[in-house]
């Protein structure tokens, strides 16, 4: 892509230097109405994402980690406007996507793509691999005929497959190979940003490593920014530069992967870290595991004040009254009245 800075209309396709801000999300909120089935009245809303802010820089990986119901997948879909946000702004190269109609959004779609979790439902079983990968290019009219064919071949090789595989159908491939096809499709328009929603969770362990390595290689070759959404803290920690930890629709901590690993500040992050089973039997019985009480509260009626207080061993009265805001030192911030000391 040539870099032109002559008109505002072109600048969204300009490649940024690594480290420059690519995406800024502020106070993003996504609500789902709860409807009674008979009369379809709205009984209330579930705030799947309750006002979060973060930024993503060119060439970096921001990991989003959290458990079921934390809103991380919803965030990913909302950033790409595949789900409607009910509030907040999504700025890409300074343009607010949240306010745009589908027609205005179209050029932006070239720069932001998605890789989905399920390798079995993310590819249309009736189309050849070539058609699947080439579709976005056709939709945007960016190439056709021989040029299109060559581009698809190039993409296949980029993800570790061969051009011959293009004439085959998805069911002839294994889960890991299908994910590669999905990645090739996402890269076909040459985006600057990829949202990856649990890209390896549905794969066997030995294949996960292949795909993670592939993603890292692609990132450095193509200067891609990743929003890497997953529940597996080990994988997120490995691939991410910075990590945002989510709980019940809020971000509770943000830091570099090293910072989070060695000195987590939010109690939930600490619990999450200690809950990950480590493949080292010599650590058994060292008693360092924190086991949280109870289940995650329903997002339809979150606790007042700090949402984590019902399961937190440090909770005090103030936690029920005032919701803590993200606070801390430079890159490492946590939303807690009593954060762990560094």
């Amino acid at each position, binding site marked *: 892509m040539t870099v032109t800075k002559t008109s505002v209309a072109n600048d969204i396709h300009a490649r940024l230097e690594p480290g420059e801000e690519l995406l800024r999300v502020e106070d993003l909120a996504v609500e789902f109405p709860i409807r009674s089935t008979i009369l379809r009245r709205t009984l209330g809303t579930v705030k799947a994402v309750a006002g979060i802010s973060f930024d993503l820089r060119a060439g970096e990986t921001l990991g989003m980690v959290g*458990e*079921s119901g934390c809103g991380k997948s919803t965030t990913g879909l909302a950033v790409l406007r595949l789900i409607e946000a009910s509030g907040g702004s999504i700025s890409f190269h300074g343009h607010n996507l949240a306010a745009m109609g589908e027609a205005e959004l179209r050029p932006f779609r070239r720069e932001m793509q998605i890789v989905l979790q399920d390798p079995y439902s993310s590819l249309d079983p009736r189309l050849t691999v070539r058609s699947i990968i080439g579709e976005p290019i056709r939709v945007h009219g960016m190439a056709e005929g021989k040029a299109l064919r060559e581009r698809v071949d190039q993409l296949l090789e980029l993800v570790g497959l061969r051009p011959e595989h293009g004439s085959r159908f998805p069911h002839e491939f*294994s889960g*890991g*190979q299908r994910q590669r096809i999905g990645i090739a499709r996402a890269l076909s328009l040459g985006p600057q940003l990829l949202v990856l929603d649990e890209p390896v969770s549905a794969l*066997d*362990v*030995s*294949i*996960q*490593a*292949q795909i*993670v*390595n592939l993603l*890292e290689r692609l990132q450095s070759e193509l200067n891609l920014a990743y929003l890497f959404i997953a*529940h*597996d*803290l*080990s*994988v997120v*920690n*490995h*691939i991410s530069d910075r990590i945002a930890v989510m709980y019940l629709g809020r971000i509770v901590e943000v830091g570099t992967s090293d910072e989070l*690993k060695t000195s987590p500040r939010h109690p939930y992050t600490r*619990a*999450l*870290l*200690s*809950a*990950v*089973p*480590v*493949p*080292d*039997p*010599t*650590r*058994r019985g060292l008693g360092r*595991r924190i*086991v*949280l009480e*109870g*289940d*995650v509260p329903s997002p339809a009626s979150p606790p007042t004040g700090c949402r984590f207080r019902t399961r937190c061993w440090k909770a005090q009265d103030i936690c029920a009254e005032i919701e803590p805001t993200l606070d801390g030192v430079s890159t490492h911030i946590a939303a807690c009245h009593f954060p762990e000391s560094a």
Partner: protein
Amino acid sequence: MTAVAQNRTIAPLLAVNDLHVEFRGDERTVHAVRGVSWDIRPGEVLGIVGESGSGKSVSVSSILGLLPSPPAVVTGGPIVFQGRDLLTMPERDLRAIRGKEIAMIFQDPMTAFNPVRTIGRQIAEAIRVHDRSVSRSTARDRSTALLAMVGVPSPEARFNQFPHEYSGGMRQRAMIAMAIANQPKLLIADEPTTALDVTIQAQILELLEMVRKETDAATILITHDLGVIAEVADRVLVMYAGKVVESTSILPLFQSPRHPYTLGLLGSLPRVDVRMDSLYSIPGQPPNMALLPPGCAFAPRCSLSRGRSECRERPPELTRSGDSLSACHFVAEMDQLTRTVSEEVGTDIRVGNE
């Protein structure tokens, strides 16, 4: 590790001998389990590790006769439990054992529970099916006590609730309650925490540990997660393409893996406790179980094999190597391979050597 597990002269509780399971389809036959033998002693925790297609779930379901018989064909054996062969046992006798002597916990508790009956009644039913003399009210009391034991809050009220009214973690607890209701000697847990959030997983693992201590049941834990294995298992079987490729105690598995597949699994795990430069990825895909190559099934993906003819022609037998059993022609070269992979990954894969 329990004292019992360390003493290997005690007779096994369950012994599987040369188990074979095939699925006969229209066009092809899938050899899901190809000659698997192992045993488990009372009170021991045996972990079975493998990915999809390894045959771990299929082999264990065949123990309890849970596979539908066409298309599954189970041969080999015997599978000896308390002196009797489970494979040739009539269905009636098997039913008496299922849920009483041997109990099973599944990945998805919804498959174990009937959605239109209350949890409490189902647990009570499980008790009364195996002991007619128990009255309804006694069964009810026992079920409530079991629910309390597994940590379900307000068990009396929860007794009358339906499965969909429980959260995922609680359903898993209820399933464990139902499994231990009749004090089984052997508990089989098939991926019990895979579908759960990691903080809930921690709770359930803790519960399983508690249950094991209370009931002294032997446990077979099937999982793909080596971290979970490291937490709870005494001994481990690693399965690949329908065979056991490594069988050993817990520490040797992580300290000196004796099979390239095991090493590959260890190297491909991202870790929160240790810094890794890059992940080791086993090349290729798990094999098509209907079109297996003649020699070692792992050979096409094996860095140790390097296309050598023994690997392509002769399937390796499980043989002793140090403290472990390993099915590899070139197990003597494992130390070298471990060093190579460790270099690639940026940290010594062997536990205890960071």
